[in-house]
């Protein structure tokens, strides 16, 4: 796909020594003050791993507490603080930045044939803002805690909660700027820094999804900032914005909150879809079937994602006619998702399928995303949602999308691009085992929660009616398998940094542009600017 027509860039290495972005500089300063998008991606990997660890510990304690119907292990207040901590950390400190800030940061410039992002220093600033805001959020959650849930529904969060609502929100507000600046950087880079010949319909599908994601980030995050600020104003100065006793409207907050938080789901899932669209061609030796349909459906999801927020509010007291509009729009989401899944399926047709770990993760993504997406149909159907909303059915549904989808693909991307990012191979056998553990453990944990929700167990229950116990026990047991699926890759990936086989530039035999440079890539990605003449992955 990429033919190097003539060397444009200057070779930066001395003859005889293989230099790349990891060994061109050394020392802690060369990392903390780097403007190299590849190194910044690693900074994000480290901080995201820490955030994920914290969120996962909270989740483990929640599952432990739900093992028995009576409230034990933690107090009711402690339980409420745990699920708030789990939600806030996982959503804002892990899922939103996850794939864009790491693999997007690392591979967007490379896939465009660029030397770096458009604003390298801004990129570093984004990371510092993320660390600062993230530390603020974690401090507020750990020292004192918050008990409103990650949704901060009013008037509970304004008048009735006596916890760190304001500090937590200020932290989230700060992290939002990191998201906005990263999005801006990605958008400008995609517009301005494509290699010669790289037209829009020759862009890798991963770039399409990162671009669509960045648009959502740029447009939705300010609305979250507005909602949080108004909440702080209400709480600190008792201005009646959301509190009905002062003439405010508690539903206004829900509208503002979901106007951000529904598109946020597409911030999480679109990049994962992009990674799937890179892995499948690499391991089938086929370009994605229906390239244009898949590319455009990312935009469809991004746009429709802004028009469906009211489906979180079917039982909130909003007008039933408004609910009907939101319901029909929500069904459209299913169409765009279906287009992607069917096209991925037929990419395998008459391909040359190589079942390595990254492809296992991609298959696992399709399986879990299909199950999560199809249960979304139930929730879009008005009367079914009346029964299922605010129960464990919803919990299971969005975990299938966010964990089964996004997190699976974060790990899938980690394995797929590990040889490129580190120059080393991960060990294949334990990796396959981990992928299977993750898939099995995930289903064991979250499938019982569909049943719980259909039976009627509400979410955010510290203690519950004993009729629900058997499914809770199954779910908690499954979580231990899932935990193994997370710990195992952590161990062998670290091991492989030192002991892994040398990868070589293109261990997968992929046609992707990022595989045409050395592993690890040189400081400025390519030794000569590539010229693009075809669609990605054309054989």
């Amino acid at each position, binding site marked *: 796909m990429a033919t190097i027509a003539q060397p444009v860039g200057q070779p930066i290495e001395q003859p005889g020594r293989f230099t790349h972005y990891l060994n061109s500089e050394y020392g802690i300063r060369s990392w903390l003050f780097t403007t190299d998008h590849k190194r910044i991606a690693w900074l994000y990997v480290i901080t995201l791993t820490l955030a994920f660890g914290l969120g996962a510990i909270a989740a483990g304690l929640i599952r432990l507490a739900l093992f028995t119907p009576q409230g034990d292990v933690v107090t009711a207040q402690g339980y409420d603080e745990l699920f708030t901590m789990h939600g806030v950390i996982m959503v804002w400190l892990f899922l939103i930045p996850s794939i864009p800030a790491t693999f997007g940061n690392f591979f967007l410039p490379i896939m465009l044939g660029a030397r770096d992002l458009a604003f390298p220093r801004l990129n570093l600033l984004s990371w510092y803002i993320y660390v600062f805001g993230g530390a603020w959020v974690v401090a507020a959650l750990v020292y004192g805690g918050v008990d409103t849930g990650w949704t901060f529904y009013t008037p509970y969060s304004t008048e009735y909660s006596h916890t760190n609502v304001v500090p937590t929100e200020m932290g989230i507000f700060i992290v939002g700027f990191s998201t906005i600046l990263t999005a801006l950087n990605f958008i400008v880079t995609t517009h301005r820094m494509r290699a010669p010949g790289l037209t829009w319909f020759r862009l890798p599908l991963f770039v399409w999804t990162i671009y669509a994601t960045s648009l959502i980030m740029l447009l939705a995050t300010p609305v979250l900032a507005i909602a949080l600020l108004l909440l702080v104003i209400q709480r600190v100065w008792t201005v009646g914005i959301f509190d009905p006793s002062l003439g405010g409207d508690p539903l206004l907050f829900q509208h503002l909150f979901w106007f951000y938080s529904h598109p946020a789901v597409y911030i999480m899932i679109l990049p994962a879809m992009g990674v799937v669209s890179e892995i499948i061609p690499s391991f089938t030796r086929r370009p994605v079937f229906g390239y244009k349909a898949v590319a455009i459906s990312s935009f469809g999801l991004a746009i429709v994602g802004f028009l469906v927020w009211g489906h979180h509010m079917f039982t909130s007291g909003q007008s*039933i006619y408004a609910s009907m509009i939101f319901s029909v729009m929500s069904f459209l989401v299913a*169409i765009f998702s279906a287009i992607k899944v069917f096209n991925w399926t037929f990419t395998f047709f008459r391909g040359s399928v190589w079942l390595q770990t990254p492809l296992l993760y991609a298959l696992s993504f399709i399986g879990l995303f299909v199950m999560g997406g199809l249960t979304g149909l139930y929730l879009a159907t008005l009367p079914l949602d009346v*029964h299922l909303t605010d129960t464990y059915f919803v919990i299971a549904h969005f975990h299938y999308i966010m964990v089964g989808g996004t997190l699976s693909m974060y790990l899938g991307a980690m394995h797929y691009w590990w040889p490129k990012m580190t120059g080393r191979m991960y060990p294949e056998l334990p990796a396959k085992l981990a992928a299977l553990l993750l898939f099995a453990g995930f289903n064991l944990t979250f499938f019982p929660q569909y049943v719980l929700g259909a039976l009627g167990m509400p979410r955010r229950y510290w203690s519950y009616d004993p009729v629900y116990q058997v499914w809770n026990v199954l779910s908690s047991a499954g979580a231990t398998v899932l935990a193994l699926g997370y710990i195992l890759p952590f161990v062998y990936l670290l091991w492989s940094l030192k002991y892994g086989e040398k990868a070589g530039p293109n261990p997968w035999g992929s046609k992707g542009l990022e595989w045409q440079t050395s592993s690890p890539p040189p400081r400025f990605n390519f030794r000569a600017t590539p010229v693009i003449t075809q669609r990605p992955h054309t054989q």
Partner: protein
Amino acid sequence: MQQTASSFGGQWNLLFASEFALSAAIALGVFGLIGFFCYRYRRRSPFEVPTRPLRRNVFMEGGWIVIPTILALAFFVWGAILYFRMSTPPRDAETIYIVGRQWMWKAQQPNGAWENDELHVPVGQPVRLLMTSEDVIHSFYVPAFRVKEDVLPGRYTQTWFNATTPGRYILECSEYCGVYHSQMRGRVIVMEPKAYAAWLGTAGSESSAAAIGQRLFHDYGCINCHNPDGHGPAPSLVGLYGTEVRLENGQTVTADESYIRQSILDPASQVVYGFRPIMPSFNGKISEEQILDLIAYIKSQKNPEQPPISKTPGTLPNRSDGSP
């Protein structure tokens, strides 16, 4: 699927089962195809280069856009019709008031009896719940009835059901409302009409809601201006409920429960045509339960010439409409 005990439970289960069948078929189809392709087209040599790519096919691409769209719209319409029925109480429904507060449910029967964390209803009688909250948002959820509606402070929301099987059913708060959210549970007790009537007799409220409301109407001094003979400085409230009221600002509104509630808490927002805005606000001076008692009293004040729009609170439910 879980047991159902309300009149739309069967419809609901049918819709759920249909979507389950459709989604299972789609999921198995996709998984089966991918599994088959992965096996059939597995790589046999590292140098294998696949040939004969699948040609771009308008019918295929169009098919998997058009067919899912039709199916999705069909399910939307089916769902919307059922939802409309689930959201629209029938005219013969008996109204029971629900007040949610951290962390208990209070219910007021038509005869004025209040109960806590329990709700007794007769089998085969449509029951409309008119709900509000004293503090934060709660959600009234009876899984066996497939009924859920948020209960908000500062306004009334409603839902309804028609219980079909006597028994005790779980009632849960499903909107997170604070530290003891999970303790905000109760039971809905569906009784045979006779047993229900007997229970209502012993449920022992000294006086009906309307009678309590009448006392409040005097205690709060409402009677001083809202003189029943119509000659006071404020309009008479006799026969008000259910009528169209013309306001100073030219609007016309229906005098339902929400209108009466708002008129008590924020009188200046809805001044009746021809009157001056002299009524003080009772916001913060009166509880949601007292407002409901006042509404019951106002509803009971019927205009002699006019047939009443809604049934009088205090009478026992009419059971001539036949239970399913």
